[in-house]
């Protein structure tokens, strides 16, 4: 029983981080069809912002979170205006362009902050472990879990219950008709992209104390996050939650049964098979195909 609880908690912890990173990607890909390979670099920027704010301005991790969101979102907005905007008609080319942007961001950070590993301190109030189901777990992981849940709820409300969200849904359904009704599709895209980038920044800041911060850290996340989005179904936020939990648990359990490499390979293969038979994802939004 102890073992099951332990595995469950490990899986949930991996899954919540996955979801956090995938959420921004899901919004950008699901609404705009842009495959953002620079998403991992947005995560990395968030982590570096947390590090910089902590070591130069002396701001702790928790108070700096809103600031990090704004910084990375502004960054994403700039990239959308400069590059992505020109590529909406060529979705496959966004893979290439965002990859180029990712390479540049990595190198810029390496030049500015140095290539060595950086560390972000845990907030002191969250550094003690807590006990759940008889298992000790770092309270920061619990914090991430609830933080992700809150962010997810907020995102869902933004999309489904605000006028800005309604404009976004209209543009996703039919950009031309939405424009006829006076919606500025260009602006909606820019804001959406910025929001997705901001979420990635937050993810980076939250992951930073758990792992070391390096210019290459983003590349490992982007593939996993992408798998979450694909498995969950492109336009379904709830699908992303389930698939993040599923993939998190799967890699947790498989990693325990064999080694991490085989676990990763097995999960990837399962995803490939899934794409083949359900390209719309496990939880595709119903409606027009």
């Amino acid at each position, binding site marked *: 029983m102890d073992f099951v609880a332990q595995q469950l908690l490990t899986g949930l912890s991996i899954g919540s981080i996955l979801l956090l990173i995938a959420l921004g990607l899901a919004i950008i890909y699901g609404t705009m069809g842009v495959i953002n390979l620079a998403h991992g670099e947005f995560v990395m920027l968030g982590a570096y912002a947390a590090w910089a704010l902590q070591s130069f301005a002396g701001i702790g991790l928790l108070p700096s979170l809103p600031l990090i969101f704004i910084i990375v979102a502004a960054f994403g907005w700039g990239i959308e205006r400069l590059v992505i905007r020109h590529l909406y008609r060529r979705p496959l080319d966004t893979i290439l362009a965002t990859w180029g942007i990712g390479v540049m961001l990595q*190198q810029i950070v*390496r030049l500015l902050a140095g290539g060595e590993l950086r560390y972000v301190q845990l907030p002191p109030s969250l550094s003690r472990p807590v006990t759940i189901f008889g298992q000790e777990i770092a309270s920061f992981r619990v914090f991430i879990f609830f933080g992700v849940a809150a962010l997810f709820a907020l995102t869902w409300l933004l999309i489904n219950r605000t006028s800005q969200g309604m404009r976004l849904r209209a543009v996703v359904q039919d950009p031309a008709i939405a424009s006829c009704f006076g919606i500025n599709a260009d602006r909606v895209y820019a804001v959406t992209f910025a929001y997705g980038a901001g979420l990635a920044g937050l993810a980076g800041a939250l992951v930073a104390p758990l792992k070391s911060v390096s210019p290459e850290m983003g590349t490992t996340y982007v593939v996993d996050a992408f798998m979450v989005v694909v498995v969950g179904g492109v336009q379904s936020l709830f699908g992303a939650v389930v698939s993040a939990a599923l993939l998190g648990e799967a890699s947790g359990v498989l990693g325990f049964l064999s080694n991490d490499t085989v676990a990763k390979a097995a999960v990837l293969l399962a995803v490939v098979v899934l794409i083949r038979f359900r390209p719309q994802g496990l939880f595709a939004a119903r409606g027009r195909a």
Partner: protein
Amino acid sequence: MTKRGNIQIAVYAFVCLVILLLPFVLGNDYLLNRIARYLVLGLLAMSLSLCWGYAGILNLGQALSFGIGSYCMAMTLKLRTVPVQTGAGGLPDFMVWNNVETLPWLWVPFHSTTFALLAGIGVPVLLAALLGWFMFKGRVTGVYVAIITLAALVVGNLLVIDAQAYTGGFNGLTDLAQLELFGITFDAYGRSTYYLCAICLTFSLFAALALTRSKTGLILQAVRDQENRVRYFGYDVAHYKSFALCVSAGFAGLAGMLYTVVMEFASPTFMGVPLSLSVVVWCAVGGRSSLLGATLGAIIVAGMQNVLSEQRAFLETWTLIMGAIFVLVVLFLPKGLAGLSEAIAGRLDRSRPSALVSDAVTVEKNIALPEVRR
């Protein structure tokens, strides 16, 4: 059209001639080895251009075929080394370190070089056939093809690194013997290797060109532009796409084998994600729908990378420069350098009507794309 076709052949022949005559001008063996390396990468880029530019299959896992080819060649060469430390029956040194007692069955056929040469092309082709059948029978298209091929590459890479006792893991296969074929020894720093690469590249370029100009090539291009219409005409689209993927994998496997000969080792980075994405970059810069453009794109970009990364001034900024160039090319030159040169040629020869036709095709494609996005 025939006039244009003849010009195309003349340009291809000219470039190949330059490549073949280069050793008479260059006396530096080290430089020759470098250029041979770029030629091999050019061949790899050409293989991707064949399936991406001509059949519309964005294969992000092209390095998988390349890596398999490279390992096949390395395995047979490894079994021929005069080893420092070996176990019973000429067991490769790293297997001894990993406490492997007998040669694994997978390695046994590689005592024959002929088998290795066949496997270097055959295994990638078989794998591509399997992957193509798996994807295209289910009508997986566009972005999902990119994801599946990328995932296949990552899985292959992980498995090779994980099976350290059989593949050398992270270190790859080093300390290889020199390839011997028809009584010629191919020293990596000799002219023979350069000519081997140059001749393979020339042969592959013309073979691929012939393929693109055949009826099959025409159907592939039609599939790229309007897959459904081709299907309505009664063609088995999955069949044609799998075929393109296989041919492209075969050329990539050949490139991988040559790469081992030139570099004198095989490493998991040869089937890594960074290399695979670089190939896409080369194709995009050179012109994805031009075989020669992709080849030259690889030679130029890889060459520039090497030159820039060696200069003190650019030591730290060259990736930045490469990234910027790449983004600019994607934004402003979607057809790459080949498209640029075609546009310039078109300006010089305004009366040619075919330029108008190709413009019309691009416009139609742009309109059709949102449909693909869904």
